[in-house]
């Protein structure tokens, strides 16, 4: 298991890969930056979040529960969610898991 600090870049890359798959494009066809909002900048729809949530679980395991995370946010924040925030969330959950394992 990598350290939380080191995972930032790796997680970001993994999330980009997931988003490209959901967008049905080849990696790199669409440039993704941490500042991009999922909906406004990348054109993802809320239904796509369902797919992303499922892929996160598939990739990282059930502790990365996007559904539970989104439930704590209000609807405007969900719509404005950025790639960087998504990566931070994943990184944080992975770190929680590491702590729990110690």
């Amino acid at each position: 298991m990598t350290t939380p600090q080191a995972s930032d870049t790796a997680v970001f890359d993994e999330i980009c890969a997931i988003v490209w798959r959901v967008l049905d494009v080849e990696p790199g066809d669409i440039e993704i930056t941490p500042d991009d909002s999922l909906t406004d900048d990348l054109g993802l729809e809320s239904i796509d979040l369902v797919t992303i949530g499922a892929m996160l679980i598939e990739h990282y395991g059930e502790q990365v529960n996007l559904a539970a995370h989104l439930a704590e946010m209000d609807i405007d924040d969900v719509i404005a969610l950025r790639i960087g925030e998504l990566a931070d969330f994943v990184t944080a959950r992975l770190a929680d898991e590491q702590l729990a394992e110690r």
Partner: protein
Amino acid sequence: MTDVTNEPILRLHAPTPGDLAELLARPDADLLALGDAAPAGGAGGCRLGVVAPNAKRLALARKVVGRGRPWRGRNEVWFSPAPLLADRPGGLAFVFPGLEAEFAPQVDDIAAWLGVAPPERNVATLGTHAASVLGVGRLLDAALRRLGVHPDATAGHSIGEWGAMFAGGILSGPAFDALIGRGHLDELRVPGLEFAALGCGVAPVSEAIAGRPDVVVSHENSTNQTVVCGPAAELAEIVDAFRARGVICQILPFRSGFHTPMLEPYVAPFRDSLLSLDLRPPAMPVWSATTAEPFPVQTGDIGRLCVRHMLEPVRFRGLVEQMHASGIRVFVQAGPGHLGSLIDDTLRDSDHLTIAANSMHRSGLAQLRRLAVALWVEGGQPDFAVLDADAVARPETAVPAETAVPETGSAISAALTRLHQLGTRVPAAADFEALLTDVAESVVAVLEAAGAATGAGRPPVAPLVPIRATDTTLHVSTSTMPYLLDHCLAAQRDGWPDETDRRPVVPATTTIWQMMRAAEQAAPGRTAIGVDDVVLHRWLVAAPAQDIAVRTRPVDVDRVHVTVGDFAEATVLLGGTPELAPPKWRPEPGERTPKLSAADLYEQRWMFHGPGFQAVSACRGVADRSARADLTVPDAPGALLDGVGQVLGLWLIEREERWVAFPIRIARIRFHTAEPSPGTRLECTVRIRDIAPDAVEAEAQLTASGRVVVSISGWHDRRFDGGGRLGDIHRFPQLSTLSERQPGGWWLLADPWRGIAARELSLHKYLGAAERDEYDARPVRDRRGWLLQRVVVKDAVRGWMWDRGAGPLFPAEIVVVDTGTSRCTAVGQHGLHLPDLDIAVAHCGEIAAATVQEQGPTPNIIHIEEAKHAVTPVNDAFTSLVRNPEGLPPRQYLVSWAGGATTDQTPQRGSKESAP
């Protein structure tokens, strides 16, 4: 928000992705220099569109073209290696969204472009929100059609289905407005119920709610979204459970219980107003999300499905799958929001395009521009010229025809000329020009080979002339409309001086013709290609002359509501392209030759029409539910469609006693070609859709050389009794009587009219102008009795004259003058001379009676009383017991008389029963 008007668009097509890649291999500068040149060509090959091309987008375009896989809109690039609509007529659907949490349509610029008022946007209540969503959908429907984008099918999500019913022809504009406007939408709410959207398919949801009878699935939205409805507390538990499993869930901000059986107790007011609307058979497949099938065709079945729609789940996923299976490939979202994402989710692995006609992210016209590009790339033919010509459409500026947008052909040549000039400086541009010329030439060769008969190439682009509100005056008189002398409801003696007694009226179909002309004048240069929702409130009489206010009010970009005083109204559809003609109907099996010939119809006065309106030139056939005839278009305006009414009349005459009929309402008329000119011979087929004692509904086709020229549906006639004496008096008033001579020589009339309209038809045949004034001056409750007496006296007088050898006598030639209680005399007018007559007249209940003699020593007497009890035969008196005929209250009357009648005929002594 991006708000760039007229952003440049790069559109390219080529036989294969390889050829397209070759085109794109040119330097960016060359590609950008192409500007908006509209590429020539048919629908085939592969196509690329880029909005506001720049280096980054061109790089992406090269990448996706090189890969050869479709790319649909991300980063403003559209590419389709095998355009979805190219070999697939009928593949485009309009899909109307329902309520969504976010509602931010960008439509003000579209409304201005169309020259109509922007729709209301008000999300204060469920009802206003729904009305706003539907209003925006309707505007976008008009905008899409203006762009030349016509649906092959329609569908909607939840209340969006009503938008689909409008766009697909089930609901007329006024019916749609009534549906939205009656304010029952807010009542469709079950207290305490919420909705929750769950990010998974229906199977795990059904499993989870199996033990919860108060929770139901209300929407099967897509592969990964299901909505449940139920009490808030239970939904919270369900949502928590699904979230724990990683399923994204959301409680929706609407509370209504719509699409669940729980709504049943609340649905009555809305259901009643829905079912009171004039529903029509769909003009195209209108898909129901209740059944995931197209709506039925019978309006009764449509109504029942509308009710189910409110109480059963929305099966949107199944709907989308079935539409795709039926051949729909392009889903145009006729509204803002996210409905397209549900379609994409369901059709994730199937080739299709969803494109929104509106987006919160950019101006309305900018999104329509993207839609046009997306559709063009899939082989559609949106009208880019109209989109660029937005300045033309400002409502305040009518545009002369010479500023019309150039045809595509000249746009191409202009671009090629520019390219050619560029080629002298930029060598690559010259290569490119050569390539384009090659492509154009090969396309031309293919199209020419396909044959000019298909009308290859596009019709000229009509300038969008906005419809103005106009207020004009129509002078209605027989001097300005002399043809109305061939359309008089009351025949009079030749040379009759008072024109008002003839009752010349403007035929309903001439009024329709006037409304079409008024609509065309409100948008000079545009042609009326259809008329909807014609309502004929009352007769428009031309004598005495009248000045009638004719108003036009634009409804949307192509429709104008026209009113002719308070006599008639309709919505006229201005072109555009005429609607495609439906196939010609086959003659109904079992057709027989009509008993009447065309000449019989007019000579035997079954039709009262003079030469200017005698449209039927041959009666071809009648069957159980149809009639066919040849029409030759007469000169009088509107006479062609009047001929359709006459063919309907032929069917009634050949079959029914109640054959006198006049149009009161016509739902839909479409001219599929230019209006046929006078002298043209056409075949007319009328089919009966519904018949009742007082009404008949028909549809009709006018065809020439086997092609449908005009189609009409929802033609409603009001029917009147044409049997017996009413029919005779209608056809030959100068030879017939409504009253009947009784044994004993007196005359009896029992009220023959079922309703005031029927009474007034006779009134104009019996009364001259002065007598009509007298009738109008009487209290309403006295009018029937007064008219019964006038009619029976006139019939008795004419009978007396005929006994003495008089020729034809029109009732209006006789003026009745009261000379005392139950006594009167009669004088002739406009040339008729009558002897000095002593007339007794009486009236009681539904009957009137009269006797006539020359003035003499013994006065004429007649008396009627109701016989309420069993009547003992009375001897030594001239007495008759008269029973009301069928259709009137079951009363009997005792009529007694003495005087002159006895001198002419031998009276029967004693009591006698007589039924008129």
